[in-house]
C-alpha cells in the first residue's frame, strides 16, 4: 500500500524539525513582526552568535526564512508560503477531513 502524501515527506519533516526547538520558535515569532538583522536577534534572545547562526541556518535550509543583504547587514524575514504549506499540511492530516474523497478502502 502506498501512502498518499501531498508533499515530499523529507521536506515536511524538515519544516517541522525547524520549529522543533524553543529558540527557533522564538526567532520565528520575532521575525513575524518585521525583518530583523542578526544583531537584534542576538540582543533580544541573549544567546551566542555561533548558536544563533546555527539556528538561522536550520530555519533557512527548511525554507522558513529568507535573507536579504543590505549594505553590510543581513536581514532575515519569514517566508509566508512555507508557513502556509505547513498549516495546509497540518490541516490535511486532521481526521475526518478526507471523508469520501479518500482512495483507501478502510478510511472513515
Amino acid at each position: 500500500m502506498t501512502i498518499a502524501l501531498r508533499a515530499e515527506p523529507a521536506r515536511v519533516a524538515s519544516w517541522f524539525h525547524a520549529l522543533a526547538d524553543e529558540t527557533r520558535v522564538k526567532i520565528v515569532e520575532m521575525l513575524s513582526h518585521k525583518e530583523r538583522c542578526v544583531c537584534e536577534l542576538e540582543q533580544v534572545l541573549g544567546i551566542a552568535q555561533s548558536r544563533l547562526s546555527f539556528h538561522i541556518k536550520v530555519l533557512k535550509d527548511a525554507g522558513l526564512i529568507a535573507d536579504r543583504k543590505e549594505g553590510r547587514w543581513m536581514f532575515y524575514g519569514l517566508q509566508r508560503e512555507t508557513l502556509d504549506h505547513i498549516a495546509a499540511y497540518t490541516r490535511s492530516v486532521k481526521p475526518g477531513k478526507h471523508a469520501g474523497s479518500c482512495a483507501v478502502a478502510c478510511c472513515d
Partner: protein
Amino acid sequence: MRRSFWVRLARKSRFWRGGLPRFPHPLHIQLAPVAQWFHAASDTTRLDILELLSQRERCQSEIARLTGAPQSNVSFHLRVLKEAGLITEHRDGRRRFYGLRGETLDNMVAVIQFVSPGKHRGTCLLSGCQ
C-alpha cells in the same frame, strides 16, 4: 561568597525545582509544548503514522505492517507522538488503538497562523511591527 548564595538558594527554595526561570516572552508559557509538537512531527516515519491515523484509528501491528517499520521502532515513534499529545490511545481488549488528537493539530495551525507575517497587524503592541 556569591556562589554559595546561589547554592544555598537553590537548596532552600522550591522556586528552582522546576528549572531555571526563562526569558520572559509573549509565547513563554506555551513554548516548550509547541517545540514538542513540532518535534513529534519532524520525522518521516512519524509523518507516515500521522497519515495512517488520519484515516482511522489503528493498532500498533497494523501501523507496523503498513509503514514497513519494525514493531519496536513503531512503538518508540508512537510513544514520542503520545508524549507530545498528538495521538491518543485506547484499549480494546488486549489491543491498543491509536487515534489522532484534533485539538493539538488545531493548536499547531494556530501557532503557524500567529507567526505568519501580517496576521497581527493593528493588534500588535510592538513598535515598528509591520
